[in-house]
């Protein structure tokens, strides 16, 4: 995931797709239910970096028991991200990432290695947990 994060950040910085405005990501990386939250958190954090804007509000669906966590997030600058992290149910870990800019798209599809979410993600994960528990959209805080 670090490689993807770095390459997307470079392409964005070079202005290759204009201003990044939206993200659609699927991550089926691990058979461990316990890693779904941190995978979602890591991608939310990466998206905030690509957008240069923090997540402001989000709504989460599913849960570890469901086998997939999906988060639809709004960022402070109006960008949006729809991220699904699910259990590995295929032959190999798969990440499918579509970064949409106002003048083009960046895409990655291939194997990826899950990595521990950085400590700064704690605030995002707390919001995801609150949304899953309440069934409501929540401010990231």
């Amino acid at each position: 995931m670090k490689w993807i994060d770095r390459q997307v950040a470079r392409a964005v910085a070079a202005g290759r797709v204009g201003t990044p405005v939206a993200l659609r990501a699927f991550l089926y990386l691990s058979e461990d239910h316990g890693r779904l939250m941190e995978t979602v958190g890591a991608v939310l954090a990466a998206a905030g970096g690509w957008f240069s804007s923090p997540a402001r509000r989000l709504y989460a669906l599913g849960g570890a028991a469901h086998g997939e966590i999906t988060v639809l997030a709004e960022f402070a600058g109006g960008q949006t991200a729809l991220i699904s992290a699910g259990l590995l149910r295929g032959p190999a870990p798969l990440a499918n990432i579509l970064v949409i800019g106002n003048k083009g798209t960046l895409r990655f599809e291939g194997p990826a290695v899950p990595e521990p979410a950085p400590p700064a993600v704690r605030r995002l994960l707390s919001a995801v947990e609150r949304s899953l528990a309440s069934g409501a959209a929540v401010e990231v805080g």
Partner: protein
Amino acid sequence: MYGVLLLGGLRTHQENYAPLFAADRRSRLIGVSDEPEIPAERARWNREFARQLKLPLLEDLDAALARPDVDIASICVEWERRGRLAVRCARAGKHLYLDKPLAGSAGEARAIVEAVRQAGVRSHMDTHIRTTWALEARRLVDSGRLGELRSVHCDLLFAKGRSGTAPLPRPRREHFPPRRYTFVDAKRELMTTGVYSLALIGWLTGRRIRTVWATTSNYFFAEHARNDVEDFGMMAMTLDGGLTATLTAGRIGWSADPMGGPSRVTLVGARRSVIIDAWQPRLEVYAEEIPWSPPPVHPEDPMGFWKSGQQEVHTRPKQAWIVDQQGNLPTEVGYFLDCIEQGRESDLSAARAADGVEALMAAYRSAATGEVVTL
């Protein structure tokens, strides 16, 4: 043979449907008609369409609907007029071939459903559900190979229009109910493209949507921002039985995709998950050919909505990928004629399509309020 009355002409999807009815040996085109008090521009496009197809322009709609040789009404008028016109056609005893979305409000959609029920006619809304990839998704779900279905995720984004002109960053302020949907240079794109995905989700799962949280945005086009309609949207939903579903919908610009735009469904099952891409399988071509470039902007069709508009500015087809999304399958028109002949309900009747309109209205309400909306 079924006689088909075309309601709406050029600059509508009638440009796509009429040739399919004309090509099917079971149907023939009778004429082009519409309501009497329509804008001059719409009247001109209808007249031109009738001329191109060498059909009569039937200006008296009541008389056209009273004709015994008209069995089917193919309805492609502007979304804002669709509800009342479809009801009128159903009450005249005509089967309805309906453009998507079904109508501009949940109330109008329900009125169509009721009129169809009372008249005992067949109805079908055109979408993607008879394509090879959608049918593959359905086969996979029905086969049980995925295990219990947990989630469905749909992405449909149209790679059309000259993007990069919308003022950024500017979070969109949504209104509910939507006041207007269609303009010459813009449409509400969550509704335009989201309707396909909602139809697919309903058809694949057989479940009804219960809650919706949605966002609408202006990311790409000054035209959409100027008309105060979104060019992009996302929805996150719960369905009966604990299923979850999401979709992305919008128009993202000519240069954002090698072909028509991302189009895929991701199925998450208890045993297996798959991504089914409408652009797979494909043959990719890289050669010393003139690279594709966006067409000039057509003043009457700047977003590339219509086949006629794109032909008039000589838009070259994108040819980097060779794909066959229809194969030898019957077209949606052929499927609808099968339903009429065999006296059976379409998989995407007005009643099913009305569920999609209800979900879209919930999405606009959610985007306007920031709340999760329960249907």
